[in-house]
């Protein structure tokens, strides 16, 4: 089974739209498992319309809690908290500034619990999100929802991918397609782990070119081979040429040049993959991307 992750660096370049289309194309001649690693803004399900088969809680990390019945407001906890999570709150009759934890700021480091002379602070496990195993028209999908304002997105990404990978291996799947998150930090690093190929979706704009270089440095750092696909390729000839030159200098293939076309948005609005919605030039170019991706993977497998 080969794992293909779709990243970009810059947000909004078209990762999810392309992921959905590749899932459609791949499913026509191969066995596919899908994963949505963009756990705090999971959009793949808006196109794939999954039927959930399994729902699991995701618990990660802890949150501190001060027992107001014990706290005497000495403030030692606030003094050691480096995350600004402890504040005195005014109380009723006795006017002691007892402390309370801001659960959003709290990182669960527990430093306060060790410092409190009265053991007034305890830690509670946090329910941070949920993950799902679903059926879709292209194959099984593992996806998740990290609750708003939660941490540990990298851990949830790792869990989603692990579940997808285990499922794929058990079913003799050919491809695990992972729709990745934007950026280069923790969730992207987790997405890279174990990938056979990173397809980097970019666009010919100064911002995307800048961000492409950083995400490419990241995939390189984690030793994941990369291919580049340019979306809205005809938006700016000079920037497109810059991307081509840059990729050539690093011996990275540009495997697609999808034109700027409202068809992509129109497909999204009706909940269809681009290649389901139309067979025009955008669709044909996406098909070419899939062909080149599979060729690249086959060629590498021969070594």
């Amino acid at each position, binding site marked *: 089974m080969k794992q293909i992750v779709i990243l970009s660096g810059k947000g909004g370049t078209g990762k999810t739209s392309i992921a959905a289309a590749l899932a459609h194309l791949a499913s026509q001649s191969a066995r596919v498992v899908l994963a949505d690693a963009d756990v705090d803004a999971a959009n793949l399900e808006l196109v794939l319309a999954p039927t959930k088969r399994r729902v699991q809680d995701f618990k990660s990390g802890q949150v501190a809690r001060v027992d107001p019945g014990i706290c005497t407001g000495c403030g030692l906890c606030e003094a050691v908290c480096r995350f600004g999570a402890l504040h005195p709150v005014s109380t009723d009759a006795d006017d002691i500034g007892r402390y309370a934890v801001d659960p959003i700021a709290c990182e669960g480091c527990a430093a306060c619990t060790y410092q409190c002379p009265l053991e007034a602070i305890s830690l509670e496990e946090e329910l941070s999100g949920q993950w799902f195993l679903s059926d879709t028209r292209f194959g099984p999908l593992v996806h998740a929802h990290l609750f708003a304002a939660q941490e540990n997105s990298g851990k949830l990404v790792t869990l989603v991918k692990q579940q997808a990978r285990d499922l794929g291996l058990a079913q003799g799947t050919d491809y695990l397609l992972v729709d990745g998150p934007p950026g280069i930090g923790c969730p992207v690093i987790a997405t890279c782990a174990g990938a056979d190929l990173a397809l980097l979706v970019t666009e010919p704009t*100064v911002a995307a070119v800048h961000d492409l270089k950083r995400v490419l440095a990241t995939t390189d750092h984690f030793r994941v081979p990369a291919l580049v696909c340019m979306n809205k390729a005809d938006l700016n000839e000079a920037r497109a040429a810059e991307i081509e030159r840059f990729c050539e200098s690093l011996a990275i293939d540009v495997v697609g040049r999808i034109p700027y076309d409202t068809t992509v948005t129109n497909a999204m609005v009706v909940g269809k993959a681009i290649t389901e919605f139309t067979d025009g030039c955008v669709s044909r170019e996406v098909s070419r991307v899939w062909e080149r991706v599979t060729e690249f993977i086959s060629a590498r497998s021969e070594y």
Partner: protein
Amino acid sequence: MIVTVASGKGGTGKTTVAVNLALAVAGAAKAGQGNDRVTLLDCDVEEPNAHLFLKPLLERRREVGVLTPVIDETRCTHCRRCAEVCAFHALAVLGNQVLIFAELCHGCGSCTLNCPEGAIREELRTTGVVEEGRAGAINFVHGILNVGEAMALPVIREVKKNATEANGEGLVILDAPPGTSCPVVECLRGADYALMVTEPTPFGLHDLKLAVEVARDQLGLPVGVVVNRDGAGDDGVDDYCRKEGLPILLRIPLDRRIAEVCSDGVLLVSALPEYGSQLVALYQRIREKVGR
């Protein structure tokens, strides 16, 4: 007054709005309409883009990161207390060796505080840089996370310190990253207003709802919306904003010309000056809401 520009969904135009708002307000101040000092903090430390548009003259640079433990082996008795108290499994004691997994360390200082032998001191492990300077009349600060580093938060916190230094004076615009998890929350905490930039599509709406939940419901911030690429998709965003009573403060139409302008790093208010006055009006509405 601190205005955080966020979105949920990536690529909706946060940076475009943030930098052009900064320029419009600074321009109005120069023209004698108010005397607000304008500061732009680019907190998308994984992929900072604001500097590509504002082209600031950077004057100061400092390395930032996480305070990580260093063990004095001459004092260490291998009692394992540090590993016990570490909530992130960043320390392990094997035989007579203390292993530190620096990339897991959150810099909380708990191991240092709890070592009974005083055998731990902390050292800054650099994970990024913060650069400061000026773009015309705009004070500019951005953070850049080093490639390969997982944690954006420590660098974002360092950039945010500049908001505190501005001391509530003038307008501080904070350009947030995409998403709704901890980096975005850190950008919204302490802000006076959350300006959400969205696109009128199912993806845009889905992620806008998540972002509004964080900003309005969890953090209690007033929220306003900018609809970018207006006309591109469907009415879902408009319907949602109407239902939720979220003011749409600006609409930028779907216009290939605008995309081309931005693709070259050109400022919208330079190429299409009509947006300058619209952004100043947006700013005035935010001021009225916040009461500053």
